[in-house]
């Protein structure tokens, strides 16, 4: 199987998985003890608005028709109106998605790369002070409870030292000022991003470093490493070109497996730092009883996870030439 065919098959699986999640969500919301109308209509809406919604979601029709309409609405991108914002759900989420992607993707790339390179170095200098010190540190940060670490960092670096803003994504005074340059705006976002990214980095980095260290130690015992040594290759080439790529394969697998876990962490981080992303929106909408928004935010995140898993698979195939699906 070539890569294109592999991508097609995996995309097909993703569509099926997503359809199952959609269906489960439908069953869940219709089985709810509350009146089905309350799932799409707010008590503050007028009788007329409620009638329109009823027709839109087919609430006066039999269940199977409702289900088909639900799927059709999903395909059209019709998620209803948020009770809280009084605005189409799809507009809200379209605004939040890039902000989550920015924070989450940057953090993931950073901690994965840093974890892999650090683990590689620790395995190379095993038994040294650097090795034991960093392993201990990695274990320590790995076990930190994420919200607590976030509060501590806000307290120390935001409040006591005043180096970083306490929350949010932008400073309005910079963004509303027509004078400010693009660079200033960019630096402002970066400034706001530092602490939430630090939290995600610290809580995830250690795990990847420790896994990479273990697999690298295993790889260094392989015969082909001995061969490379016997050929008289420089140590740096053996480490970076012969051992590290193979050793990082299990790390990429664990990147995919722990994605769901990282998404939980992302939602917590966004909530604590008031980062205007999907995760915070989901938490807030559940607290507000804003069903249309909660449901759609969850589906967006589920889609995000599935696509990210596919990306991990592609990276794996790229790193391991033996795998040509």
């Amino acid at each position, binding site marked *: 199987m070539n890569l294109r065919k592999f991508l097609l098959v995996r995309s097909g699986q993703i569509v099926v*998985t997503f359809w*199952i*999640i959609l269906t489960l*969500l439908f069953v*869940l*919301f219709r089985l*709810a*003890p*509350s009146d089905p109308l309350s799932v799409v209509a707010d008590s503050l809406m007028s009788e007329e608005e409620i009638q329109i919604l009823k027709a839109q979601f087919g609430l006066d029709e039999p269940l199977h028709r409702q289900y088909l309409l639900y799927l059709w609405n999903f395909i059209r991108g019709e998620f209803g109106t948020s009770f809280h914002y009084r605005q189409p759900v799809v507009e809200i989420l379209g605004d939040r998605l890039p902000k989550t992607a920015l924070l989450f993707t940057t953090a993931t790339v950073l901690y994965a790369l840093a974890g892999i390179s650090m683990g590689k170095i620790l395995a190379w200098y*095993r*038994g040294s002070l650097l090795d034991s010190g960093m392993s201990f540190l990695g*274990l*320590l940060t*790995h*076990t*930190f*409870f*994420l*919200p*607590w*670490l976030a*509060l*501590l960092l*806000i*307290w120390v670096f935001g*409040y006591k030292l005043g180096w970083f803003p306490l929350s949010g994504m932008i400073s309005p005074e910079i963004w509303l000022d027509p004078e400010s340059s693009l660079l200033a705006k960019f630096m402002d976002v970066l400034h706001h991003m530092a602490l939430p990214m630090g939290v995600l980095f610290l809580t995830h980095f250690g795990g990847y470093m420790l*896994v990479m260290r*273990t*697999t690298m*130690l*295993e790889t260094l015992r392989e015969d082909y490493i001995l061969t490379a040594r016997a050929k008289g290759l420089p140590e740096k080439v053996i480490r970076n070109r012969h051992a590290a790529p193979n050793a990082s394969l*299990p*790390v990429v*697998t*664990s990147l995919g*497996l722990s*994605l*769901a*876990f990282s*998404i*939980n962490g992302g*939602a*917590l981080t966004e*909530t*604590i730092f008031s980062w205007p992303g999907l*995760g915070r929106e*989901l*938490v807030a*909408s*559940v*607290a507000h009883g804003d*069903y249309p928004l*909660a*449901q759609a935010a*969850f589906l967006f*995140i*589920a889609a995000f*996870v*599935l696509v990210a*898993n596919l990306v991990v698979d592609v990276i794996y195939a790229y790193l391991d030439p033996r795998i040509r699906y």
Partner: protein
Amino acid sequence: MASSRDRGKEKPLGGGAHFLRHLGENWAIYRKNRMGMGGLGLLVLFGLMALASFVPPLLDPMYHPMNGMDPEIDTSTGPSARHLLGTDFMGRDILSQLLTGARVALLIGVSAAFMAVAIGTMVGMVAGYFGGIVDTLLMRLADIVMVLPGLLVILILSSVAGQLSIWNLVLIIALLKWAGVSRIIRSQTLSLKVRPYVEAARVAGASHTRIMFRHMLPNVLPLSFLYMTFGVTSAILIEASLSFLGFGDPSTVSWGMMLQWVWKTGHMFKAPYWLLPPGICISLITLAFYLIGRAMDEVLNPRLRKEVLEQ
């Protein structure tokens, strides 16, 4: 990561009695693991905290973690002789809350992990033993469950069902966490299925249930037990996160909830005596189960043990 793949290659164990007989031997190996013993020590400490949680309310009703209030204090105060760790925003004793938190965390962690592992072991054995379409369907289901972000699923559920009680939460965590275990148990079952003693049992006319429960289950149980230690941590973390976001069971107090109170009542910059203890406890209990799991991994996986000795 690699260790779980290689576990299938281990030498066959000869049934549950065998495992029990070797428990002493395993303990001797475990005891040599300093990190593992450290983890166990921490766990004993948390166990003692959980037991001690019954004491303060007996001493004086004002020490009750949820509705005990000091008649003289109605705001958050620092540590004193009367309240060793201080009081929260309503004048409730923080130490007493912390002790109760240990009880709640252990209760939720152990029961959710036990249920998750029980489900995962059953599913994994059935999938591996019967193979074919049963296997495909169960493992596809496991794949779907595995990619779901558990915390967010629970949030959605609580938006529909309202406030979740502790026991509902335990059940939901179990239903979200069985998938990883089932994959491991399935691959173990696949290798057990072709062993001579299973063949012999089949020829002797043993039923499917008998083969699975009498002959295969004892051999996968050590693995299940190992994964339970990892499951406990993730269950504790999910409950703590959920409570931190304000969706915990309001009839009890947990460490996550204590952190939420510090945060939401705006005390995080002025009450370190209140912010630090619950976070330290959650982090340490995570560490405890992580260390225990790693040490058990070495006991059950001789290859790993050799590597550690080599270093």
